[in-house]
């Protein structure tokens, strides 16, 4: 019985990576992610130049569940990639560099840097719901998705992952990403929302809008994975609201080969172990030799 998976040509010892944006923005953060047991490390989304981001509050929990965040793609710019990659290499964990830009050129620029310093893959963030010019508009437009993925795939040889958010045409956008050379899709990013304080009479996040993550978006994310898998049998990494092995397993039977976990870290530092332990028993229950036997199983019901 094995939890090993290969996704986007990356051999992983198990299917649980971290989601971009949690901890992967500093060398110390990479160390922490490795200690938390993730099978691959995804960096915070990196743009060519450093970005300051919004003033706090940028991340808060919601009384209705989950988190809302608008960090404004704060990141130290492409110059940090080298150090992040070298820390991961030392720890012997594959590292995926998440990338965003305001143009095809910027995406390609960061991707080249990632490849140059030895990243194992790049993940294109085509779906940040709260930062203008980097955002949702991009992922919601299948043609723009194609052109960004194409421009990156044409200048790099590392595997390219395309991360999409919820939009009316996400299934179509996924197909364009695949056509353009994405080896795998990462589904989904946070969902646009607002949290207002009824005493202060103002949005709690300085940026007003934020991205909803955590358990609330799980059924939405599973839906998107299910639809994209049904149409294209693509390689998919499921992300959104995983909080235990069952919410992870749902992604797998919906069609994901691997998963990413973000928000769950707020409540549970043992999340990776918990998910793996549950998945192992689950495989045993089905007498399955490998997790890949259950990928997409819900489509056969």
């Amino acid at each position, binding site marked *: 019985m094995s939890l090993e998976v290969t996704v986007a040509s990356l051999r992983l010892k198990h299917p649980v990576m971290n989601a971009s944006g949690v*901890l992967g923005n500093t060398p110390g953060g990479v160390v922490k992610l490795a200690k938390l047991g993730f099978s691959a490390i995804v960096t915070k989304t990196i743009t060519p130049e450093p970005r300051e981001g919004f003033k706090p509050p940028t991340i808060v929990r919601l009384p209705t569940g989950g988190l809302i965040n608008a960090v404004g793609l704060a990141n130290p710019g492409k110059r940090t990639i080298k150090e992040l990659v070298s820390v991961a290499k030392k720890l012997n964990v594959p590292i995926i560099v998440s990338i965003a830009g305001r143009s095809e050129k910027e995406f390609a620029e960061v991707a080249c840097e990632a490849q140059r310093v030895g990243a194992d893959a790049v993940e294109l963030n085509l779906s940040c719901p709260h930062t203008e010019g980097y955002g949702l508009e991009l992922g919601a437009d299948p043609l723009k998705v194609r052109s960004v993925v194409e421009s990156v795939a044409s200048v790099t040889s590392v595997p390219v992952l395309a991360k999409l958010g919820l939009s009316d045409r996400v299934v179509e956008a996924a197909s364009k990403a695949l056509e353009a050379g994405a080896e795998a899709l990462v589904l989904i990013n946070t969902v646009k929302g607002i949290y207002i304080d009824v005493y202060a009479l103002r949005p709690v996040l300085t940026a007003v809008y934020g991205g909803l993550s955590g358990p609330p978006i799980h059924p939405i994310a599973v839906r998107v994975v299910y639809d994209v898998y049904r149409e294209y049998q693509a390689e998919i990494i499921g992300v959104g609201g995983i909080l*235990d092995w069952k919410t992870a397993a749902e992604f797998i039977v919906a069609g994901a080969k691997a998963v990413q976990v973000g928000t769950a870290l707020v409540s549970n530092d043992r999340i990776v172990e918990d998910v793996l332990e549950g998945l192992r028993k689950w495989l*045993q229950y089905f007498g399955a030799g490998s997790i890949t036997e259950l990928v997409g199983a819900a489509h056969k019901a």
Partner: protein
Amino acid sequence: MVGLLARTLSTDVREEVIHRFAEPPKLSLFEEDKYGVLRHARVSRVRRLSRRYLLAELELLEQFEDPPGPAQFVMIWLPGIDYIPMSIANSDEGRIHIFFSVRGEGTRALANSKGKMVGVVGPLGKPLAVSARSKYVLIAGGTGLAPIIKLARGLSDMGLLAAVIWGTRAREDVGEVPFYFKEVTGCNLTICTEDCSVGFCGRAADLAEEVLPDLENTQVVAAGPNDMLITVADLSMRVGIDPVLILESMVECGLGVCGRCVLGSTGLRLCRDGPAFRASEVMDYLVDVALRRGQKH
């Protein structure tokens, strides 16, 4: 790519496979905790304890589920102004005390918040674990006294408090602080002033240097500027004590996810794994920071 199982087995056979009862995972239904939810508090009073130090008293509208432990902190949201971490200096059902000094916009707003509503997220961080088998010497510098107050109260209740040393600049900074400290903890504060105007003449670290070598079977906890922490850690380690240091770093989310508060290459998150650490875990980091700061000057 379609799962082997799903592909190769007919529905009937699959039904059987599915229902063959192996060892099903133990399941717990999900319960999202309230860790980190925004609460509201009214600032009922802001007391000026001295020229430098203030005390804000907050009345929570939504109570904490569990009483905060020593070294835990809250994020205080001053709507439209700032979102800042503050130690819980003292707490009683529904009320918390913040011991602070004005540094910038956020702390200035807090100083002027009497009668206003603020947001409170917490308690955050790991409560400092207390061992009942040894006595404690607590050493604080400046606003580092904040987390020490709560700790001292707990230790004093347990009869484990040996001494509390606090250093600040001058008599004017001391003001009513020792009275407040006594009010809360029932204990006396050993004062050090840099200008020698009250108490011990020198910094808290200087007094520590005199006290620490004689300690046996004692735990040391220190909070304050990094230089002080390094000195205390050094002295303690020399007598075989691995002291607990309560650190500060930039805290943004307070929830352990943004990575802002991570202590260099240790990977430790101040907001979640701390803010109290064993010196042995964080010494390299502290020295690194000090060196780098030295280089800049």
